[in-house]
């Protein structure tokens, strides 16, 4: 599995494929507007088994762009049995469209039925084992490593036995899976729970990072951010991304925009900014080849 990982065709800067943006990307294909769009990301829950115009749109993109699958409903932290039938459909979908990367959230979204939203897992020892076991089973069925994303949330569970960073590290290590680092979620949680996002970033296991997200959000009150992916990315989040590249090296990074969708040119402005930060960091890395920024391989 480690071998496949090192030949990862997902690189550079990407954009979440929202239906509203689809025709605009198709129209701008091959123009300077999309010159820095290296890959796109889709939710398998929206595209598996969809025929008609949806199947044709998907085919258009798979022929032209590397694709990342970012799942929403696997419920890795959920109390229900893991939906293995669904995972087999995901496997078939990944194989059929030659999608190299599948990521999911460190959250749950079911309680005997699906709630279709990302809910927080209490950070306890038992939860670590539960989630890690389900990630391992997922990797078994998909026959590949997956990456899991640090989630944003609004309620700190009163039964937590550890902090979020410790929980993430423990799960990744026990599951032996990769990290999908969501830069915006670090910032959102740092405001919602009053911690230092820079310190949190440094606690992340850099050698496991294969992919990152960046996004905007809605700042509701002084101590509450709602993670809407509906605004421009704010400067402190850009700064965190820059810092992450400095600490861990460059990894493929995607702009998420899920509500209040702007025209493609505005979204591409932020995708280009990701590409700019990556190029700048790689420029520094080239000038200092012995520097510690070169990425470490995931330990086997």
């Amino acid at each position, binding site marked *: 599995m480690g071998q496949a990982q090192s030949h990862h065709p997902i690189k550079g800067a990407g954009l979440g494929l929202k239906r509203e943006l689809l025709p605009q990307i198709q129209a701008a294909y091959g123009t300077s507007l999309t010159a820095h769009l290296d890959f796109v990301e889709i939710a398998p*829950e929206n595209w598996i088994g969809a025929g008609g115009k949806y199947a044709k749109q998907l085919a258009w993109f798979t022929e032209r762009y590397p694709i990342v699958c970012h799942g929403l409903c696997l419920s890795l932290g959920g109390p229900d049995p893991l939906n293995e039938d669904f995972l087999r459909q995901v496997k078939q979908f990944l194989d059929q469209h030659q999608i190299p990367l599948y990521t999911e959230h460190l959250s749950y979204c079911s309680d005997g039925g699906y709630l279709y939203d990302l809910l927080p897992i209490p950070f*306890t020892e038992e939860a670590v084992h539960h989630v890690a076991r389900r990630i391992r089973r997922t990797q078994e069925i998909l026959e590949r490593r997956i990456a899991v994303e640090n989630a944003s949330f*609004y309620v700190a569970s009163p*039964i937590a036995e550890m902090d979020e960073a410790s929980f993430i590290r423990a799960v990744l290590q026990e599951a032996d899976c990769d990290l999908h680092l969501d830069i915006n979620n670090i910032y959102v949680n740092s405001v919602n729970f009053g911690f230092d996002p820079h310190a949190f970033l440094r606690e992340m296991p850099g050698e496991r990072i294969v992919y990152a997200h960046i996004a905007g959000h809605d700042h509701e009150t002084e101590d*509450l951010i709602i993670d809407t992916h509906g605004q421009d990315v704010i400067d402190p989040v850009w700064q965190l991304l820059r810092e992450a590249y400095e600490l861990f090296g460059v990894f493929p990074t995607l702009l998420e925009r899920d509500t209040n969708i702007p025209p493609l040119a505005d979204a591409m402005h932020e995708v280009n900014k990701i590409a700019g930060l990556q190029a700048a960091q790689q420029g520094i890395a080239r000038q200092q080849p012995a520097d510690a920024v070169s990425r470490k391989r995931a330990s086997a």
Partner: protein
Amino acid sequence: MSGADTDLPLFQQYQLAFTAHIRHPRLHARPEGVPAKRMRVYNEIVFNNLQSAVGACYPVLQRVLGKRAWQALLRRFFAEHQANSPFFRDIPKAFLAFLPQVETLPPYAVSLAHYEWVELAIASADTVTPMLTAEGDLVQGIPIVAPALAVLAYDYPVQKISVRFKPRQALAEPVHLLVFRNQQDEVKFVEMNAMTARLLELLQPGELTGLAALQQLGMEMGHADSTSLITFGAALLEDLRQQDIVWGVAV
């Protein structure tokens, strides 16, 4: 869902109490130690997400029921329904399956909801187009109809229902509607008579020649004069081809 199962690990008891409250805040208190203000964020975003997923599929039903009744209906759906599909397009389908158990709805509501849902179902149906030739004799050959197609009969004039027109009683004869996806992947609705609807049902499996289907239709209708039916039927099949309902003849 009650969260009272003490055999479960503590974190799962907490998770189930958390979602029980989200689903039915009046019936289940939020877990102890959770601040009300933060809990409310989940109460709102989870329900709002579901509301937009369902609402997008049922614009007419939503308007004819009115805002208050619609909200109450969705609340009940959210509290009572156990969705078993991870696919987002199955949310409206689950809502449709839930509706018949609601006693307080107007009599046309389930038919209207089905009519609204079927557009989504036909738009996204994952179909395979059989080998066909677009030209070809529709009487002697086997006509191939649009692969994403449904022949529907409703007891209410669902295609006419609006805030201004809420039918009081069922139709004397059901209305026959054809919904299909054309070769440009657009979903089209066509109102038709019972005979055309039956002909399309006969053709849909792609096994009968046009002639065999028309003969079968004649038999079912008790038509003595099959010659005139076949002359008429040949013209009808051509018309269906013009409308992109029949795509050609099997090869």
